[in-house]
């Protein structure tokens, strides 16, 4: 598996996959957004249900991105694999954007439905913590000049921060939260109507694909930058 994970092979493989990834992203995201926009108003929530198709996929993607960040960090710590450093570093700003988006859209949904933009319940608080962990991770990378040491320190922080993922996931079960419980991935099937489930699923796939597209491009960018840097260093000798 690691044979495919050297930077040269990654560049070749990703340049072949990227056009398809972009096309799939455009299709899924386009379909999800349009169907979400056309979905009928909910009998209780009215048109604010449209915010669901923006909020839920962003929050899902934010958590998935952190899972990938933690997994690639673990690979980087255990096997010292250079591509995994690059992959983890490239995922962080994207994850932070999706987290911020989840927070803002959630807040815009909370005001009309709960009567408050923000409450300090366990789900919202742990999700805000996710944003701070992302920002701390990015700051740590920028604070240490030596690339190898920065990667090591950041990977350790990423693994410590991973404790927060199950806390976010199960916060709605462990504590009394204003945020609703799991209504999609639950035993007995999703608890929302099909007219909302389909646009939500497509948006979820679209946001996920958008993350993978941007992640791939950011990894490629970082590999190119490192190549340029080593060429510059070689030229200075």
């Amino acid at each position, binding site marked *: 598996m690691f044979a495919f994970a050297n930077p040269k092979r990654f560049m070749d493989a990703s340049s072949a996959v990227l056009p398809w990834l972009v096309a799939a992203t455009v299709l899924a995201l386009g379909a999800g957004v349009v169907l979400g926009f056309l979905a009928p*108003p909910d009998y209780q929530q*009215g*048109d*604010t249900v*449209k*915010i669901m198709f*923006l*909020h839920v996929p*962003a929050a899902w993607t934010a958590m998935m991105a952190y899972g990938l960040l933690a997994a690639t960090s673990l690979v980087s710590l255990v096997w010292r694999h250079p591509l995994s450093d690059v992959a983890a570093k490239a995922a962080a700003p*994207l994850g932070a*954007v999706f987290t*911020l*988006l989840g927070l*803002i*859209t959630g807040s*815009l*949904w909370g*005001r*009309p439905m709960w009567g408050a933009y923000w409450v300090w319940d366990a789900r919202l608080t742990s999700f805000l913590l996710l944003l701070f962990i992302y920002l701390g991770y990015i700051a740590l990378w920028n604070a240490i000049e030596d690339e190898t040491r920065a990667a090591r320190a950041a990977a350790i922080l990423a693994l410590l921060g991973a404790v927060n993922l199950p806390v976010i996931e199960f916060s709605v079960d462990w504590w009394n939260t204003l945020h609703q419980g799991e209504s999609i991935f639950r035993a007995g099937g999703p608890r929302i109507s099909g007219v909302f489930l389909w646009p939500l699923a497509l948006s979820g796939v679209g946001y996920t694909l*958008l993350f993978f597209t*941007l992640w791939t*491009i*950011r990894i*490629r*960018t970082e590999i*190119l*930058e490192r*190549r*340029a840097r080593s*060429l*510059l260093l070689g*030229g200075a000798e």
Partner: protein
Amino acid sequence: MSQVLAMGGYAAFVWPAYGVSVLLLGGTVVVTMRAYRNARARLAALEKP
């Protein structure tokens, strides 16, 4: 048309949610592509003999 704009009285929340999503995700795409193009151009310039 005006019915769509009104969003059943929730226009003040639904439209900003769309707006911020387009702005943040669109901005991320633009920033990502710009960095990618710059990196490619820089490397190409260095590799030229």
